[in-house]
């Protein structure tokens, strides 16, 4: 291979714009306010952008993602799982899986991170007004659901019945414990927890999410199901919803992809003509059905 063309440095320094709209690659520097060890492998970071004006004007919709970075290690994509109705901080929950996530797990309050957000599309929360909502989350897949669920609870009168089915492998793999306790105690939503392997003192359901969902048998009338979890869970949960006569248009999910730029340029997160970072991460099952089969 011929080696690189290296444009020669000269005296023509150009400072490219700062702030997200001018330079979409330049993150906002943010400070970690607090961390929560949710499970042995999931850690939550609550961060505020350092520039007060930028934090003040920061707007996003439930389901949008951000690129969170540790300078010198790299960036990864996570959903902003706090709701836009609660803007004291932006919350990201990180499952330890690779180099960047392992480094993010090592952060303490006061440490600096980079945030490029908001990116991507969002849950159609306006179109969902007046409907019954069925949330189905598996493992870290609860994170994107959390932002929408909290948004809906903060605008409770706008939505019909809210049902949550949240599953994990074991009780210790359940994230957002404080939230879950609160949701279990709320009379204006129905919360069901399930684990694949239940210890004897587990007071909730045991069994795989799709089986429990069939047992709960939520009505498809005027309903929308929102699901997120590992690919295998999505596959079988969609099948269960079909058995419950949910139409493809009534099923909404969010996709994961390896993303770098987050703005539809770098070319790795496409499924056919759709870029998950721009056209997603939120898709209805009807939209996914029409895409080339490359999930």
């Amino acid at each position: 291979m011929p080696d690189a063309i290296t444009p020669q440095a000269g005296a023509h320094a150009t400072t490219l714009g700062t702030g997200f709209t001018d330079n979409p690659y330049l993150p906002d520097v943010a400070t970690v306010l607090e961390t929560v060890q949710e499970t042995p492998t999931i850690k939550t970071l609550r961060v505020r952008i350092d520039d007060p004006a930028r934090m003040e004007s920061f707007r996003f919709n439930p389901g949008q993602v951000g690129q969170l970075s540790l300078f010198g290690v790299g960036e990864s994509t996570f959903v902003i799982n706090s709701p836009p109705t609660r803007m004291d901080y932006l919350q990201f929950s990180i499952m330890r899986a690779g180099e960047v996530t392992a480094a993010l797990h090592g952060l303490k309050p006061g440490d600096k991170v980079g945030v490029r957000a908001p990116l991507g599309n969002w849950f159609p929360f306006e179109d969902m007004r007046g409907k019954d909502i069925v949330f189905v989350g598996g493992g870290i897949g609860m994170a994107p659901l959390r932002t929408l669920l909290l948004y809906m609870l903060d605008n409770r009168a706008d939505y019909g019945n809210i049902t949550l089915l949240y599953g994990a492998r074991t009780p210790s793999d359940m994230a957002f414990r404080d939230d879950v306790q609160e949701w279990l105690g709320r009379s204006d939503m129905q919360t069901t927890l399930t684990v694949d392997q239940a210890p004897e003192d587990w007071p909730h359901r045991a069994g795989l999410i799709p089986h429990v969902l069939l047992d709960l048998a939520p009505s498809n009338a005027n309903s929308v199901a929102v699901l997120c979890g590992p690919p295998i869970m999505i596959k079988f949960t969609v099948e269960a919803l079909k058995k419950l006569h949910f139409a493809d248009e009534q099923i909404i999910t969010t996709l994961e992809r390896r993303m770098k730029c987050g703005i539809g340029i770098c070319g790795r997160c496409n499924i056919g003509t759709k870029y998950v970072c721009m056209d997603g991460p939120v898709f209805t099952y009807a939209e996914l059905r029409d895409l080339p089969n490359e999930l």
Partner: protein
Amino acid sequence: MSFARYIARGELARALDDMARGRVTYAPRREGDAVVFRPRAEGEEPLLARATVPPKGVIFPQSERLFAFIREKDPNDPGHTTVRLDSTVDIEPALIFGGRPCDARGFHIFDRVYLNGPHRDPYYAARREATVVVTLACNKAGSTCFCHWTGCGPADTTGSDILLTPVGEGADAGFVAVAVTERGGAVLEAANLPEADAARSDAAQAVHAATQAALDAQSPARDLSATPARLLERFSDSDFWRDMSDKCLSCGACTYLCPTCYCFNITDENDGGDGMRGRRLRSWDNCMSSLFTREASGHNPRMGKALRLRNRVGHKFSYYPQLHEGVVSCNGCGRCITGCPVSVDIREMVVRATEANEETPNA
């Protein structure tokens, strides 16, 4: 914006010097077995050979710094550091000489994504703005050239500021230079060149026509209008893609040699072991690599090379045209064919995928 000037063969170096006042000129130079674009010294006689690589790296460097990060101890809280980001970049006015129409059109393929998409890429935009593209029309058809299939051609001006066409023989050899853009016009004016008379302009047209005829004789132009849909129909035909990718080594030479491949990676580097200073880089990436889409969880939607090749061909001949008014993101330069160590031929894939046959589902 179109006027024609004439550059006698012996005047080329001087004319280039004049056109490139205040600019670094990148021109073809032989290095080992390859012809590559390198900064040219004033007065240097440029090579007219077609380069082994496209000049895309002048505007889209193989690796570039997006910003530097500088950590400093927080004076108010010595246990913590603050971070400063420096997104200053050095961008020199430049001129690319001697790329071919397929090379220049590559920048147009980039422009649609990097300048005119939902987000403007400020790094690409600044270099594109600072670079004049002086293209050499082709007077020969290379054995792997198929620009005439893709909407490009031996004298296509898309993406260029100035087009030079070689005309005449021996003592009468020279170039007809036509300004394509206003900027190209200004640069051409600065070179104080005589106007190209009608005979020379006609000679340039004849060169264009002769090269076009040579290409047509070599391989009749294909109608690729049905290709986007046909490739989608082929999407689940795993036997077809396995067959097509059988030889492929996933080495990525095709992507690095391609004037239209624009995928990149973003990575961080530290200056030293203490993590106090470093930089975030953007580097060319390669969709044929198995790591390109591999997620941290281990899930990889394009695990096998057949799926990766399907995406490469699909992107160029189906997805991109669907998103960009039918424009194909391949200019038929043939470098991926000549540069492939095992002779994978994108022409064959496109032709076979486009041809409806009984094996094609839904065709």
